[in-house]
């Protein structure tokens, strides 16, 4: 609490300033308290200190006195907090290194802050008493001088001054103002010095403060390091999933190229051959020409079916037109193994990439079930689940069968491709497939992806 006397206006207002009255109150209460408890503390310490070399019994007494000093420090901190509003932090007393009364006593004896409190008891008693009495005397004399014009006329004092009455009145009033001011200044500075003294002697030591700050800085550094480490790991994971996504996309393109080359293109070439045969045979062997045309017709139908399958593999039209629910039903209907589909929540709230990922997960899983699992039934569930701690909702798809298990997302497999696709959406991919215990594939992707 700095005095309000800095700045010219503050100085002029000093006698009527709130800080002055707070200072007076603090000094008055402090004077009473310090002259009783404070005096008792440092007398106790001084006496037990004096008894140490004489009787040796002084050491326990000294420890008790220091405990008393600690209690006194606590009351002083509380008193200053109430009267001045300045909160002085309590120091951490040293802890005994071992159990037992001797280490405990030793811990008290080497508590430098208890010794500082003792010093405070002495210095503050002197300071506060002096300040308090000075304020009282100055204020009293100022009051007397202010009242002098009322009662001083014709007194010996007035006569002894030997000045005309009017000049005496002016002088008395002037003195009252100056003395009142002085009382205000002493009250504010006295209170200010008490607080400064309390901060330096009753608070934690500078070394302890530095230690606390250092520990806080260390904690902050550890947190920052952990954050940086987390970010680094996240970056590594993202780089990995990005690479996996690129790889998955690449594998997908290769698959489409192979499918087109080995499928539709071959069929079209064969179709061309058939039509050529038909044309060449048209004149000389109409029956052969008709047979070739029949071949060509079958070829066209097969090509169309193959193209339809291929296009569905790239992006299923039913997903765009009628949503994930209908698309999953269509997948279930095509599966040779009986499939039950359950959905929960509004699947339409999931974004197109999330829905497409869910669709292809189920498509691939059902293909695998049909090919490898030897299962009697499959259960597909799709649900929009609200994520914990306020994170955005996620689309969860589970494909569970009762087949032979033992599935693995081997590199280059369809499952590995899906894992890459899911990873690219920041999703999770969990394959649980104990041998003989069925397969359960759980995939979650953020709806917003």
């Amino acid at each position, binding site marked *: 609490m700095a005095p309000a006397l800095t700045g010219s206006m503050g100085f002029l207002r000093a006698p009527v300033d709130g800080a002055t009255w707070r200072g007076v109150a603090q000094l008055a209460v402090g004077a009473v308290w310090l002259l009783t408890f404070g005096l008792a503390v440092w007398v106790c310490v001084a006496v037990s200190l004096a008894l140490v070399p004489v009787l040796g019994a002084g050491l326990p007494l000294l420890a008790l006195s220091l405990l008393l000093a600690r209690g006194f420090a606590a009351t002083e901190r509380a008193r200053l907090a109430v009267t001045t509003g300045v909160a002085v932090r309590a120091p951490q007393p040293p802890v005994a290194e071992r159990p037992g009364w001797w280490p405990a006593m030793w811990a008290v004896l080497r508590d430098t802050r208890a010794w500082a409190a003792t010093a405070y008891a002495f210095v503050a008693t002197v300071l506060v008493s002096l300040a308090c009495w000075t304020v009282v005397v100055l204020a009293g004399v100022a009051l007397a001088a202010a009242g002098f014009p009322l009662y001083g006329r014709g007194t010996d004092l007035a006569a002894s001054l030997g000045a005309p009455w009017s000049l005496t009145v002016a002088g008395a009033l002037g003195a009252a103002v100056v003395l009142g001011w002085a009382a205000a200044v002493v009250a504010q500075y006295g209170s200010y010095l008490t607080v400064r003294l309390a901060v330096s002697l009753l608070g934690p030591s500078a070394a302890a403060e530095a230690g606390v700050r250092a520990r806080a800085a260390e904690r902050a550094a550890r947190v920052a390091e952990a954050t940086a480490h987390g970010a680094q790991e996240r970056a590594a994971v993202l780089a990995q999933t990005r690479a996996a996504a690129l790889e998955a996309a690449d594998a997908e393109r290769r698959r489409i190229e192979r499918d087109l*080359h*080995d499928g539709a*293109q*071959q*069929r*079209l*070439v*064969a*179709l*061309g*051959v*058939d*039509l*050529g*045969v038909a*044309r*060449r*045979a048209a004149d000389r*062997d109409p029956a*052969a020409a008709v047979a*070739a045309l029949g*071949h060509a017709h079958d*070829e066209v139908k097969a090509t169309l079916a193959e193209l339809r399958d291929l296009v569905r593999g790239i992006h299923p039209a039913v997903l765009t037109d009628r949503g994930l629910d209908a698309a999953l039903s269509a997948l279930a209907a095509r599966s040779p193994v009986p499939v039950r589909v359950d959905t929960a929540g509004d699947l339409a709230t999931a974004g197109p990439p999330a829905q497409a990922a869910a669709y292809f997960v189920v498509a691939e899983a059902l293909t695998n079930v049909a090919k490898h699992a030897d299962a009697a039934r499959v259960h597909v569930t799709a649900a929009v689940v609200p994520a914990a701690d306020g994170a955005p909702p996620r689309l969860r798809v589970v494909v569970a069968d009762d087949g032979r298990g033992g599935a693995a997302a081997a590199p280059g497999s369809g499952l590995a491709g899906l894992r890459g696709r899911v990873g690219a959406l920041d999703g999770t991919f969990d394959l649980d497939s104990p041998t003989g215990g069925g397969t359960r594939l759980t995939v979650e992707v953020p709806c917003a992806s």
Partner: protein
Amino acid sequence: MRIVIAEDSVLLLDGLTRLLTAEGHVVEGHRTADATVRALTAPDAALPDLLVTDVRMPPSHTDEGLRAAVHLRSLHPRLPVLVLSQYVEQRYASELFAAGARALGYVLKDRVADVDMFLTAADRVARGGTVVDPEVVTQIIARTRSTDLDRLTRREREVLELMAEGRSNSGIAERLVVGLPAVEKHVTSILDKLGLPPAPDDHRRVLAVLRWMEQNGDRS
């Protein structure tokens, strides 16, 4: 004539078999390059009049067919081979033609759909001629850096492409609808401008042209 086909696609193998059988040929089909090589290298095997082989075949689906063709040609340099390729690859063409261009053809698989062209190519190769797919020639010319090409007139470039495809002078004349003497004049001019020796037969000429293009090709 007797024709052996090496083709892994059942569809195409069936189609080609029907086509060639309808044309009065005797056809024997194989689904892998290995099977083809085994059949043609058996002690009592009679060489066919023509081998038609796909480049991309099992097990690795890369260039098994081409390897088989090169291998069989090294055993029987006179065996007529028509190679069908899924796509144009200059490296394949160079490998194939490295040992000579006589009775050798390299065409895109899609050309098979153009039945007349395919039958003509098969016939030409079986009779000892050379067929190079126009696509391959275009690609090689596009990659040829030599400024010598710039000195050719447009007509001469057309003639050069047809020469590279393996056509004879009369074939070129027919294709461009010009007289034979005009084609002969263009050919002499082209060979002169490119610094190639005059070659009497068509397949030697193809080889010279292809080799020249390859030497001047941008291999980067």
